[in-house]
């Protein structure tokens, strides 16, 4: 029901109008669970052309998803002691590997070899070394999770959603790629189930798909850290006293300083950097 009173308050007239409306069947007999429905709301009716002609204001209620996102983000910022550490990674080795094996990988697994699987694998590699980054706070306790459920932020028409790769440590590169592709598609259609969006012990946000060069991602509570990866761009870097061109990606790790110290956070990010710059480490687990 839409309130027409001040600040959207529901008035007597709104209730009378609602009561007069024929009861809509989906509310009574839809087989779709309630949470699913919230995700299926149509995008808000904003007409930009109309908005720019004259100077009208348009008031559109937040969708349930948007309200939940807003609530969680504010909660995150007001409870955690969030700070962000940065590093940069030379993506040339990963790109080289993709170029070399793309065709065979696709033939073998039926999916393209993207970058996200590398980021997920590198994150898992680092999480195993620094388990506190995979932990969460519960009251006065730190809960170390014996599993790695990695949230992968995906854009959808209704806003950002973060579906979870369950037990990501048991997944192959191909499985990760397939799962993320599937998430992306179903997010577009608003068909992600609530059970796929809850839980998670660590998150990865790839702002690079939109062209972001650097950002400070915000933690998804009760998780304690989130990795931000960005657009890979050619940059002038110095190697052995020489200025060379390298495809660089800036990494950001936002972490909850209440349980993760700066030392661990920085070493965690360095570990990711090293794994990406030398993917052989992922196999050798070093």
């Amino acid at each position, binding site marked *: 029901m839409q309130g*027409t009173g001040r600040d959207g308050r529901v008035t007597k*007239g709104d209730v009378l109008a609602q009561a007069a409306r024929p009861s809509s069947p989906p509310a009574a007999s839809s087989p779709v669970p309630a949470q699913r429905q919230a995700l299926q709301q149509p995008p808000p009716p904003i007409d930009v052309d109309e908005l720019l002609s004259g100077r009208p204001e348009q008031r559109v209620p937040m969708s349930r998803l948007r309200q939940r996102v807003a609530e969680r983000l504010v909660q995150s910022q007001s409870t955690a002691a969030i700070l962000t550490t940065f590093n940069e990674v030379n993506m040339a080795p990963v790109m080289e590997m993709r170029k070399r094996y793309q065709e065979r990988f696709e033939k073998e697994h039926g999916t393209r070899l993207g970058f996200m699987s590398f980021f997920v694998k590198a994150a898992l590699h680092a999480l195993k070394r620094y388990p506190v980054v995979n932990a969460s706070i519960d009251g006065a306790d730190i809960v170390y999770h014996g599993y790695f459920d990695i949230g992968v932020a995906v854009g959808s028409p209704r806003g950002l959603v973060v579906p979870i790769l369950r037990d990501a440590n048991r997944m192959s590169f191909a499985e990760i790629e397939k799962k993320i592709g599937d998430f992306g598609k179903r997010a577009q259609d608003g068909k992600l189930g609530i059970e796929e969006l809850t839980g998670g012990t660590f998150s990865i946000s790839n702002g690079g798909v939109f062209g972001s060069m650097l950002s400070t991602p915000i933690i998804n509570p009760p998780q304690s850290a989130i990795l931000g990866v960005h657009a890979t761009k050619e940059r002038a870097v110095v190697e052995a006293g020489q200025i060379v061109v390298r495809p660089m990606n800036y990494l950001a790790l936002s972490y909850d300083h209440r349980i993760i110290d700066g030392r661990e956070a920085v070493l965690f990010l360095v570990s990711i950097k090293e794994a990406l710059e030398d993917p052989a480490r992922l196999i050798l687990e070093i």
Partner: protein
Amino acid sequence: MKSFDVVVIGAGPAGYIAAIRAAQLGLSVACVEQWKTPKGEYALGGTCLNVGCIPSKALLESSENYERVQHRFKAHGITASGVKFDLKTMLARKDSIVAKMTGGIAGLFKKNKVAWLQGHGKLLSGGTTWKLQAADEQVEAKNVIIATGSKARHLPGIPVDNKRVCDNEGALAFDSVPERLGVIGAGVIGLELGSVWRRLGSQVKVLEALPAFLGAADETVANEAWKIFTKTQGLDIELGVSITGASETKKGLSIQYNGSDMSSKTFDCDRLVVSVGRVPNTEDLGAENVGLRLDAKGFIEVDKNCRTALPRVYAIGDVVRGPMLAHKGEDEGVMVAEIIAGQHGHVNYDAIPWVIYTAPEIAWVGKTEQQLKSEGVAYKAGRFPFAYNGRALSREEPEGFIKILADAASDRILGVHSIGSLASELISEAVVAMEFGASSEDIARICHAHPSMSEVMREAALGVDKRSLNG
């Protein structure tokens, strides 16, 4: 050259409130005001505080008290003989209230660090910042708020000298009570000032060009007011007249006019009040220097957020469209200051109360019954008289009623109209209700103190559903 975030031209209720709100929000603010008291001192507050709302209320209260002693106290068993009034004291009291109030604004300016530039303000040129002439200096402003107000409209052929022929300014300062007072214009100002001098002993005749009395008010209220003013109080009001001329006579003035039946008539009086509306103050504002657009009547053109077509130039109060009410200007001042500070100020023009401080008072908010009829809106009405209210009776103020108009389907309150003692105070409840989109049932279900005049509001709300409990 001094530079400010905001320069406000005019320190009437719209301008001074805008200046204070902008200063509260951390902006550097100057306010230009050219008003001078009769003694030649610069003063803040504009028409409202100096020669409008406030001094007229002071004289209305004094004259009303005099009338009470003479006529109304008898019913309480109180009689007094030899009751006199001293006009000088009455006027001095009025002046001291004005001085207190305008001095108060000067204090508020100091407290909020608003610079008061004494003299005439005028736009000189634009660009990334606006240049203004303020008295004898030039100042620079990132944002300009024009709040130059309005002045009394005068009639051709009847020059106002504020001695014999007066507008609101002179009519608040007669040095003696005129034996016969003529008032042209039966609007708010004419009725209020006519009331003051009638109570103090003048024989008052009001001439009104329009055929309907209080056309802006709800018809039932206007009819009730007509009955009380003309029959009970003996105010002589003639409608539908056209003034043809005025001439000075040995004893005073002679007004020539055509009656509603087009017969030519004359009317002699000692003094005349011309209260035929007000016109915006946009002369010598420098509008032409910067390309500021005025409409045919001289009002500055603005959108609903009081933005002019020029960037960062706003106009508020009587100088723009909408009712010439101090509180409407104040709210626009707050809105504009907040918009300049990056906030989202707004004014709900559908919930602005109107008040006429006659006795009994007239107050309303929202749509009148005739408006709803002409718009074809289905509505229900509930009306309750003060005569059934214990507090009104014990106060010996049984006149008038409150009427609530609500949407027939949603029950949302569309208008509230009242004539009666303290109507100006009672209307606030209706304004709050309308601001929150309340239904008449909402008011009907709210506990009202007993005995109080406010119970009439609740009974009127119950009346919308034909279930008043006490009538």
